[in-house]
């Protein structure tokens, strides 16, 4: 039969179709049946917090999705509706897990490499051993249960993987999670450490990069402090932490006179000038001898450092203003309709040189920085002269215009005279 011809009713075909339908229904029913009966959830979903576990959060939990149940951690029997039997000692029910017990409980699975391989071979299995080296882990061992345990950061019944943007440990959310305790004055009472880290970090350029520019490689708390082995880097090692990204500056600093001086004084590299959490956009004003500069915190009038700082500030300003004045001329030329795109491209080189100089100054020696500044000045001078040439061309155009206006004026005068001559002699008016 051709495809366009209508087909006759066929009972065998109908039966086949109904059969397929039946199998599908049965399969989904079986699946629903196969999903382990969870009496715990059925009951606890109806309760109020803190005993409430909602079905949605439970369904989002990565453990649930991998097939684990309430009983995996809490013991007990989730299959039975009988409360006595479900939460009975016989079924191994442990009830609410004590805080001090939580890390050990989680590591029961998470430190077992062979076990974790079944679920995610790339997941690390050293979280617990790291945790034991952390400030949190060490304090927990001394009996302080106010410190963070696994569930404080990862949450407990709706745990999402760190790559999930809704997870409390996703890079975008880490600072907020840490801040829940570390920015809470009540919680942090008695520990003797500051509580302004979250506020400071939120004002920082790293926060801006992470949250506003969406650059997930930007550092958050755990990047510098570690996540499971969380501890502040010591004074001697802060520079190492920063240098993982800011390699150039660290290299230059190591070769600078400040390295020796800071080590001797027990001052941390990088943080001394840039602060640890409130790392703001560095400005040229930071370098120099004015009141707001970082140099004058140690250096004073008369010492070498003061002198160098003043010169460095001077140099930066010089290049900055050279670029600015060249930009001004180029802008004027452009708005007059002149073509200066080549110069604008070259100006980028001058700006590059300024950026470079701002890195080179971390060697705290004048000569290398001056080289960069000089290179920049050369480019700025070139673009300035190109801009001035463009303005000269504009003036040439205006002169050309003036010339043509003169010829027009001559024609006008000539016409006027010619007409008056014509009308005087010939008598151009005509009466009808």
């Amino acid at each position, binding site marked *: 039969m051709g495809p366009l011809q209508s087909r006759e009713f066929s009972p065998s075909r109908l039966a086949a179709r109904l059969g397929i339908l039946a199998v599908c229904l049965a399969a989904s029913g079986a699946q629903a049946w196969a999903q382990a009966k969870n009496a715990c959830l059925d009951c606890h979903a109806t309760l109020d917090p803190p005993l409430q576990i909602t079905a949605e959060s439970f369904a989002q939990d990565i453990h649930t999705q991998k097939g684990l149940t309430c009983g995996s951690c809490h013991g007990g029997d989730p299959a039975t509706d009988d409360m006595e039997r479900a939460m009975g000692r016989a079924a191994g029910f442990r009830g609410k897990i004590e805080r001090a017990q939580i890390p050990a409980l989680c590591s029961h699975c998470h430190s077992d490499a062979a076990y974790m391989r079944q679920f995610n071979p790339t997941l690390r299995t050293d979280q617990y051993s790291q945790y034991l080296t952390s400030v949190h882990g060490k304090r927990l061992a001394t009996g302080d249960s106010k410190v963070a345990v696994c569930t404080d950061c990862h949450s407990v019944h709706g745990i999402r993987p760190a790559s999930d943007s809704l997870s409390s440990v996703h890079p975008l959310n880490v600072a907020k999670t840490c801040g829940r305790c570390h920015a809470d004055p009540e919680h942090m009472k008695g520990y003797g450490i500051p509580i302004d880290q979250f506020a400071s970090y939120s004002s920082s350029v790293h926060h801006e990069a992470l949250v506003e520019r969406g650059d997930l490689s930007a550092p958050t708390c755990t990047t510098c402090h570690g996540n499971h082995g969380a501890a502040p880097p010591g004074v001697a090692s802060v520079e190492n932490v920063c240098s993982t990204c800011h390699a150039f500056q660290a290299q230059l600093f190591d070769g600078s006179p400040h390295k020796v001086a800071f080590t001797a004084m027990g001052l941390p590299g990088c943080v001394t000038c840039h602060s640890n959490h409130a790392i703001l956009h560095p400005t040229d004003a930071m370098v120099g001898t004015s009141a707001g500069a970082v140099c004058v915190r140690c250096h004073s009038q008369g010492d070498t450092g003061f002198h160098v700082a003043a010169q460095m500030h001077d140099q930066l300003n010089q290049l900055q203003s050279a670029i600015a004045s060249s930009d001004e001329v180029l802008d004027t030329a452009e708005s*007059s*309709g*002149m073509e200066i795109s080549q110069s604008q491209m070259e100006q980028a080189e001058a700006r590059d040189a300024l950026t470079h100089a701002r890195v080179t100054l971390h060697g705290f020696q004048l000569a290398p920085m001056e080289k960069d500044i000089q290179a920049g000045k050369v480019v700025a001078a070139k673009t300035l002269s190109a801009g001035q040439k463009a303005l000269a061309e504009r003036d040439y155009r205006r002169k050309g215009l003036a010339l043509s206006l003169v010829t*027009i004026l001559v024609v*006008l005068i000539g*016409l006027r005279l010619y007409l008056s001559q014509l009308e005087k002699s010939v008598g*151009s008016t005509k*009466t009808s």
Partner: protein
Amino acid sequence: MRLFSAVRDWLDERFGWAELIAPLRKKTVPHHSRSYWYYLGGMTLFLFFVQVVSGILLLLYYRPSSDQAFESVQYIMTQVRFGWLIRSIHSWGANLMVFMAFSHMFSVVFLKAYRKPRELTWLSGMLLLFVVLGFGFSGYLLPWNTRAFFATQVGTDIPGQIPIVGKWIETFLRGGENVTGATLGRFFGFHVAVLPGLVTLLLALHLLLIQRFGISVPPELERQWNAQPALRREIHFFPNFLLRELMAWYVALGVLGGLAAFAPWELGTKADPFAPAPAGIRPEWFFMFMFQSLKVIPAKILFISGELVGILGFGIAALVWTLLPFFDRDGRGRAQRWITGAGVFAVAYILVMTVYGYMAK
């Protein structure tokens, strides 16, 4: 001079050149206290020729596609020798021409030159005015910058409000639902082919009719001259009036050059159809009075939308204005005074609403 006469004689032997231009040699132009207004028509024509020449020159480098139009204008402004001059002359010339066209039309109204037998001249002139506005509107979009893009969006939106045919007109103008590269291509076609063709026909008709009927004189003066023929004063078109017109045209060229050098037409930023409209978009100045009127009309008048009332109002006004000669048959009496009054009102209205439009946010 010897060369001129030799060429003239050569042409005359073959085409009867002297006989052909004889009527032109006899052509005269009335000379009276208000005859300075007569220059406006020729000035509009001259500026049109400037536009044609500069437009053809621009055509050699301009590219009418949405991803190249802006860059090609930038190229003309910056890379082509004297491109800045040609482009600014074209942009400024367009504005000057629209201004001259309006002034010419109003001078005809106030000098009552539309009366019998010149009704068709007036009609062809009004059609020419509409075509000139079409040139201005279509040409404005061609550099494809932000200002032009949104002005076109607003400008094509307005006829879309007309009931029944509005949507169709809007889609026809835009080449689609929105202003896109298709609109640019369409406007380019209008600007360099359709409208020039139309203008050629209308202009030929207009000039022919002017030749046929001669230059009109205001009614009172005409009556006076008919009563006392000795008072009539006229000057030869060739060479006297023409040389005077040439002076005016040279001044216009100087003005255009000065504007190009000291107030070059801006390039703007390339249009981005997906960016939101910037605050304060508005059409070109010669549409400003209509735009501002539509803005001040309340949202609803009785049961009709205010904007629709405005559009229909302007449409009716344009129609009545085009049919003006048929309201004033003989140039005397009440009808004439009404028309003078209407003319004064129109000029005042346009001036006030244009200024208002620019001063208002």
